[in-house]
């Protein structure tokens, strides 16, 4: 018990306190000026925009994938089921490296996509692709247990009452999946905002164009502009804590929902 607390405070609390202390040394006006430079605003817009699109893509494909894995039997199902966690296990640097290579003009996918005008490497689209990869397991893994525990009887009842399959899905299945999908979406979104490793390789890191907020922090640090880096970091931290709160609420909501069903 004592050991837990000591270790926790040494590793987590002291660094946090250090960062906060340094922030309080800044005046509010300074903080605001540093955190809202044009370059920073462009970086936030890109970070949050790309994360949002990636999380939406994950919500869509993740739901589809979870559904297919839970409901259908097809060759290779178990392999895919265990491969879903692959983006968690793969170091982000490797993910960024291989995705950048795949979508580059001479890569396996880029060869066909670039002539069509779809440039995956060194563009905002590339960032979305990398973030989708990194966040993919979240929706699938939060949704799978819910789908497996869903009671088939309710669907059968809907069918006997004359509902078509689509109607059953829309008014019976979808509402019970919604909390889990939203939780997965929020988790993927939170992860995407902080993501750094995979983006560095695929984005090209051009200021105002493909520069994400975490990368800007690193740039500031390399210029030894500590206060600038700290101001940006605080903005990101506040956002991740807000999201953490939302995720907790969503989880409570979905567990209550589960019990009611």
């Amino acid at each position, binding site marked *: 018990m004592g050991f*837990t607390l000591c270790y926790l405070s040494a590793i987590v609390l002291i660094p946090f306190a250090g960062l906060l202390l340094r922030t309080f040394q800044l005046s509010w006006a300074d903080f605001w000026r540093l955190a809202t430079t044009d370059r920073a605003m462009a970086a936030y817009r890109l970070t949050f925009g790309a994360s949002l699109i990636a999380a939406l893509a994950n919500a869509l494909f993740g739901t589809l994938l979870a559904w297919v894995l839970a409901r259908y039997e097809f060759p290779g199902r178990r392999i*895919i089921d265990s491969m879903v966690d*692959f983006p968690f*296990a793969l170091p982000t640097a490797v993910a960024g490296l291989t995705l950048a*290579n795949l979508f580059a003009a001479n890569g396996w996918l880029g060869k066909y996509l670039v002539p069509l005008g779809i440039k995956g490497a060194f563009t905002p689209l590339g960032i979305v692709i990398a973030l989708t*990869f990194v966040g993919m397991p979240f929706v699938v893994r939060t949704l799978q247990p819910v789908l497996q525990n869903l009671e088939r009887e309710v669907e059968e009842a809907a069918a006997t009452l004359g509902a078509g399959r689509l109607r059953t899905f829309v008014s019976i299945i979808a509402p019970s999946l919604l909390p889990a999908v939203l939780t997965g979406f929020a988790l993927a979104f939170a992860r995407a905002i*902080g993501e750094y*490793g995979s983006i560095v390789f695929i984005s090209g890191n051009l200021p105002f164009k493909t520069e994400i907020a975490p990368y800007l922090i690193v740039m500031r640090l390399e210029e030894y502009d500590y206060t600038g880096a700290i101001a940006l970091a605080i903005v990101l931290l506040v956002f991740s804590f807000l999201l953490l709160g939302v995720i907790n609420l969503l989880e409570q909501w979905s567990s209550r929902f589960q019990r009611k069903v």
Partner: protein
Amino acid sequence: MAGTVNRNPGARLKRYQRGTEEPPVVKWTLITVALTFCFVFLLLPLVNVFAQALAKGWAYYWSSLTQPDSWAAIRLTLIVAGISVPLNVLFGLAAAWAVAKFEFRGKSLLITLIDLPFSVSPVVAGLMFVVLFGLQGFFGKWLDAHEIKIIFAVPGIVLATVFVTFPFVARELIPVMQAAGSEQEQAALTLGANGWQTFWHVTLPSVKWGLIYGIILCNARAMGEFGAVAVVSGHITGQTDTMPLRVEKLYNEYDAPAAFAVASLLALLALLTLGVRTLMEWREAREFERAQMTAAQP
């Protein structure tokens, strides 16, 4: 799962009329879309790593792994993981023990704090340590006067790695320990075992698999961490470059095959992690089945 594909058409029609299955067309479209998505986003990137690594043949692959700087990166990664994983295993055991077996005030706060590193961007995590120990940081002057280097040196890398990987073991263990309950420990204590014996012979075996999986996850993340380590390492080639940082450096030097060669080792590690996890899940499922069969027997 209700029903398989190969039944006679009449049965399938009947089942479809029952209304809990989609029409085959919808079903196979969904499966195709899902499989395509998996192919593009899972399989292709993985295969690409190995294909690019071996693009210039085995000899080049081998020589890019054994060149001194890459070799130094591999060694450093092993050292860092070797220090931070045992530390986090100790902490994970202690924290999970405290959370699962005792009731105390502020327990939910403790759980939130354990999860904290998950929700912090790795870059921000690295920044925290720079703020503490960097030259302009709180302890910077003192450390500099005593010639202790933490930032841009191995201790900083270890600290950052410990921070980002520290929830893994605890998170895997807490549910397992909670499920195991504390009756067995109480029984051991009444039979005269001391605290340590109880822990070693009763608690530890019951959480063995959760612990192993936690260690493996923690290790995979420790070896692959990029953002936090990039901030504190200082990128000194041959000295403070871990494997992921080495990958980036080689890539920026336009030596893609060598970058992929180092990356392929990390990808192998990821595959190994997944393999162990899958094995454990199958094991669990088998044990569950066996338990159900014994329960069903009169």
